[in-house]
């Protein structure tokens, strides 16, 4: 794949909450036009990093560049070019799906006619056309679809997806994957976190793995699994992402006699 520039560059990112360090000196680069998997065990600082990358949190120190420009919480111009599907989905529960999406579209600067057209098409494609319910009454999978639609409605250049596929049915996941492939084919970038390593292995071209507290332990091209059958790390061959991930993040084996 032709990778012209870097979509994201993080340099020495540190995020502390009082005495607790959530992200420690994280540096990584994400090339444009790929699907990038950002992996790590629970509490390793993935969501904190995404929070810093999307302007929700202020880094304690370090620098973030998105699409070649310095990014901070006030970078309105860059935010317009970014789409975010937060871990908590960020829905307004008393609103209906079309009202929520229309609001999001308008906030990202789409005109009224384009917003309505895109909302209708998105709801139709994601099978969310029943407007009798408010978002608070939707199932988890339906809520996730709405959050995904909100992330893509303004055709962003960089898409941040925090655990995008959990709770969505196979048909929905297949459709989203198809959209994401087309998205990256157009030179746009997807930065996603997931605990489903098989999905990441099938979808992403590159992966970064962090360990507690937000320390980068590995970054590399995982298309090698398909091309060469295995990745060599520390003199050992790994034929899939899962064993590599477990090795890097410290696999624990605990036997409980009563279980």
């Amino acid at each position: 794949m032709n990778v012209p520039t870097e979509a994201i560059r993080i340099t020495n990112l540190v995020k502390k909450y009082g005495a607790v360090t959530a992200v420690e000196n994280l540096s990584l680069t994400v090339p444009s036009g790929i699907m990038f998997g950002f992996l790590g065990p629970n509490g390793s600082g993935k969501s904190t990093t995404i929070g810093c990358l999307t302007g929700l949190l202020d880094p304690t120190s370090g620098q973030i560049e998105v699409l070649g420009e310095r990014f901070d919480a006030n970078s309105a111009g860059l935010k317009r070019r970014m789409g975010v599907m937060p871990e908590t989905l960020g829905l307004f529960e008393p609103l209906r799906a079309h009202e929520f999406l229309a609001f999001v579209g308008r906030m990202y600067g789409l005109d009224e006619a384009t917003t309505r057209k895109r909302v209708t098409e998105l709801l139709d494609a994601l099978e969310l056309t029943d407007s009798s319910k408010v978002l608070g009454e939707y199932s988890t999978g339906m809520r996730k679809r709405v959050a995904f639609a909100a992330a893509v409605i303004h055709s962003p250049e960089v898409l941040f997806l925090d655990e995008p596929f959990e709770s969505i049915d196979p048909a929905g996941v297949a459709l989203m994957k198809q959209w994401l492939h087309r998205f990256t084919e157009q030179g746009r970038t997807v930065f996603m976190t997931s605990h489903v390593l098989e999905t990441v292995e099938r979808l992403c071209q590159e992966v970064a793995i962090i360990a507690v507290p937000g320390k980068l332990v590995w970054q590399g091209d995982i298309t090698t699994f398909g091309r060469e059958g295995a990745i060599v790390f520390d003199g050992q061959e790994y034929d899939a992402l899962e064993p590599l991930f477990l090795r890097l993040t410290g696999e624990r084996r605990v036997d409980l006699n009563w279980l």
Partner: protein
Amino acid sequence: MNLQLIGQLIRLRYQLLWARTRTRNGKIAWFIAGYLLLIMAIMLLALGGLGAGMAAVRMGKAERLAQGLLTALFSSALISSVMLGFGINAAFSDVELRRYPLRERERRFARHFTGAADPFWFLFVALELGLATGLYLLGASYLPMGILAVLLLYVCNYLAAQVVSLLMDRIQRQKGGSIVLPILIMALCFLPSLLMPKLAKNPALAGQAAAALRYTPSFGAGSLMTRTDAGALHGLALLLLWIVGLAVALSALERMPPRRPVAKSTRIRWDSPFDRVSALFGREHGILVAHWLRFYFRARRFRVQYGLSLPLLPFLLLIWTRQVTRHGDPFSAAVGVFAVSGITAGAAFVVNQFGYVGGGFRRYFLFPCDPGAVLRSSSVALLAACAPYPLLATLTWLLFAPVPFDARGLALLLASAAFGMFFFHGLGLWTTLYGPRRCDPNQTMGNDLSLAGNIALIGTMLVFLMGPMMVGQFHKGILTPERWWVVMALAALAVCLYLFSLRRAGAIVVARRERLLAVVEGKA
């Protein structure tokens, strides 16, 4: 009956209560509540109980006095519980309890036992026990019977609170319930004020009313507490009958599934009045104002508050001004009512504008806009939503004013409304930033604001309602139509305060966003 597990659940309930006190707000609230409770308990146990007992024994009316005091305590507990949500908010719902190995009967028992074991009820039990002890020490009561009366009244009070709140919930879920319920509440609240003058004029009617009260649980408890003859038995039977009746009603209401609203059309409708109204605020702000208006008017809590203000203001204006006519100046009282007229409709939302948003709150920081604009537009939307109420108060005043019409007086009243509205909405911006609390937008009753929010809301209401009357009482001639410009100047100051707050708050939203996110998303 799995009593061990139920005991563990009650323990967990208290652990959760204790955990809430770990926050800074919680600690302050805990300290103040504890301090007030201690003083109240000491005063009431020592003075209330003993004093009431002494007075009752001396007058030879121990039973009547006990009945009166118990009725007051019973009603206070019922109103506080139903309206403010104390003591009835189930710590564990039936769905939550299903994960434990409990049968249906045990789940119900666990739910009500954890509800009845709420510290709120213990305050009232302590007060009632104080009365029983006072009466006993003065020889007007047999202590074991007094304690029995208190315990039975406590059960009755808890069951009554549950029945009333469930009934209100069911009414509210009916079509048009959001309008019917506030009107019912208002009618009940103002009934005593309307009836009292009639009862005072007609002693026979008062006698009939008192006779009807004989069948209430608190009158039964009063008899059981103070009598040793057949009257005590009558009181005991009455209390037991009430308990059985309320338990049956509660059981029936719990079995009755709440009605789920069914939407008529599933077609997407694009045009809404919110968009049309907010178009007045320009493109960027218009989108946000429309969003906030839609959000607020979709929230059940806001709709109930908004609807409740509709009968509240005219009632307040009419009754408040007429009642003070005997003691003071009705115009001063009207100044106070006008000052709150632009507040009551959405007060809880004004002091906690982000608290009801929930998970959607983080969107505001992801959008390519100034997050300060989000708070500004929320405030403007609330101001716009509250604005019709001073007009309603004006209309009521023009039609029913107990004083002759004076254009300067009307200007003063409108200035008072503007002062109240801008001052409170300005204050609300600060409490939104420094005293936020995660709240449920669909919970219609109960008090879920932070300490700062409560102080701002209750404090402002009391000062606005009482302040002008006190000023009128002690400095006659200040709040008169001739001095209309005094309040006009205050209104201008309030507008300045609001505009300053609006401007300053925008920058603070960005600086405090991590803290706000943690609170609104329930992580702090």
